[in-house]
């Protein structure tokens, strides 16, 4: 930067000059020193310099539009678009071809063999989505099936679902599935019509249905709302029988053994968490404490173990944790203390 060129500058020239603009919008020690020195040497330029700088500064006092309130919603939309998008990336690699092999390859291609297909290093992408404590998120899978994840849960699946292979996902935590039905003829099921949820040591096979699956504390339970699903084990053992569930059925597994099977009086209730409602039916304090820890990230300590067996008969349906704790306090006649950092202490 030299003074000479600036002595002849007009207002317009200053406004067009890179260094001048940088000084006006991003003053640094260096450029402040330069322009101070310039003005000392050429005081007759001071008014013009001042006016040009003020013009830029006033111009910059404009309104800012950031649309912060829509930030998370738009991100969710982007995520679900990506999840449903066909994956177009693939690594194409031809390793160590000598000149001779290149000629040979060319010949093979002309000969009609798809050399590229062979040398293509297909590596299907893995998609993973996870929720934080207290977060509920719906993900659209490549076949338009939807899964809603409860708090502290995750799902993994391959990005490219091939036409002639089964649809497969791996879930941890709790998820509510709404699977797109592809099969119209239950006697002839094509591979692509199969939909398999891997959960702990269970494989849940689906034809097109809605169901809830929950794997926490070594236990896995599945509740079927509509359709039909088949459950078997990741490791085949003689005593493990395959179970076919009908709507309203509920099963619970622990250490690869069926520990409970019943009809749900209100099947739809297993999915109320997907609309951010907290519901329990005939729940013990133990179940409620587990939900607080699993889905919302609380730590719960109970003064006496006997308290955990306390049971609230009937339905609880609340919208937030504070209301839930109020219900517990009044109906079980217990004391609940909530300290900072999501810690809850329950005593008589």
């Amino acid at each position, binding site marked *: 930067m030299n003074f000479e060129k600036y002595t002849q500058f007009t207002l317009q020239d200053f406004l067009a000059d890179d260094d001048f603009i940088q000084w006006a919008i991003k003053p640094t020690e260096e450029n402040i020193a330069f322009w101070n020195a310039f003005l000392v040497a050429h005081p007759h330029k001071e*008014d*013009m310099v001042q006016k040009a700088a003020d*013009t830029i500064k006033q*111009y*910059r006092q404009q309104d*800012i539009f*950031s649309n912060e309130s829509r930030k998370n919603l*738009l991100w969710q939309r982007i995520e679900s678009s990506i999840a449903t998008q066909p994956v177009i*990336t693939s690594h194409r690699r031809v390793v160590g071809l000598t000149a001779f092999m290149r000629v040979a390859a060319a010949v093979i291609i002309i000969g009609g063999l798809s050399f590229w297909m062979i040398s293509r290093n297909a590596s299907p992408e893995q998609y*993973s989505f996870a929720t934080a404590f207290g977060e509920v998120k719906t993900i659209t899978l490549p076949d338009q099936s939807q899964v809603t994840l409860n708090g502290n849960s995750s799902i993994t699946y391959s990005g490219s679902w091939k036409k002639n292979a089964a649809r497969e996902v791996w879930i941890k935590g709790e998820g509510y599935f709404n699977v797109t039905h592809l099969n119209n003829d239950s006697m002839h099921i094509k591979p692509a019509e199969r939909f398999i949820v891997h959960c702990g040591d269970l494989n849940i096979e689906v034809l097109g249905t809605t169901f809830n699956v929950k794997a926490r504390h070594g236990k896995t339970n599945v509740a079927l709302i509509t359709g039909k699903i088949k459950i078997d084990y990741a490791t085949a053992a003689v005593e493990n029988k395959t179970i076919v569930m009908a709507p309203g059925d509920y099963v619970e597994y622990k250490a690869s053994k069926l520990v409970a099977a019943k009809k749900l009086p209100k099947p739809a209730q297993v999915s109320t968490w997907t609309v951010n409602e907290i519901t329990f039916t005939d729940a013990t304090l133990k179940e409620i404490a587990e939900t607080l820890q699993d889905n919302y990230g609380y730590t719960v300590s109970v003064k006496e173990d006997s308290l955990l067996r306390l049971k609230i008969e009937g339905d609880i349906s609340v919208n937030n944790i504070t209301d839930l704790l109020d219900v517990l306090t009044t109906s079980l006649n217990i004391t609940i203390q909530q300290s900072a950092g999501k810690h809850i202490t329950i005593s008589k």
Partner: protein
Amino acid sequence: MRNEANSALWHSFKQGNWEAYTSLYNDYYSLLNNYGYKFTRNSNLIEDAIHDLFVRLWASRENLGNPVSVKNYLYKSLRNTLLRKIKTEEKYTGMDAEEYPFGFEVSYSNPGGMAIEEKELREKVKAIINTLPPRQKEIIYLRFYEGLSYDEIADIMSISINSAYKLLYKALENLQQTLGPSPLLGIFLGLSYFS
């Protein structure tokens, strides 16, 4: 410094790092909204454009280059996407598709507690800017607000560097005519003016 951090982020995103991709969104969301808002007041259209831009980024991440400035690259992409959407929209609403079928508006609120001279100058700047054609408005914005160089501006606006010079000078001529030696302004600003 910021540029270095962002090119590391960009690099990591290109290798399929979802967290880096999420950071890009978080870092640039409001800047892109602000830029988009100059072209249209239809915030749904801006959202659609940001959506398309980010979905496309992820899908084509392996084939993307390494831009000198991530921000400029995103500005340019958003601009192209958004202008295309505005054009389509205007086709549907039956508006005349001119050569440059969109506006470029900056807006100012009236803050309290501003010195009278400042307020005068602000009003003046605002008035002149509003009379400029959209492309001149845009180049003034990229120059004075974003502080970009001529070649950066040329890249974002998809014009030659030479055209960028010419365009800016045209805009500045208009500014100078009004801001130049004006006795009225001189009195308000308490400035004497030699040129």
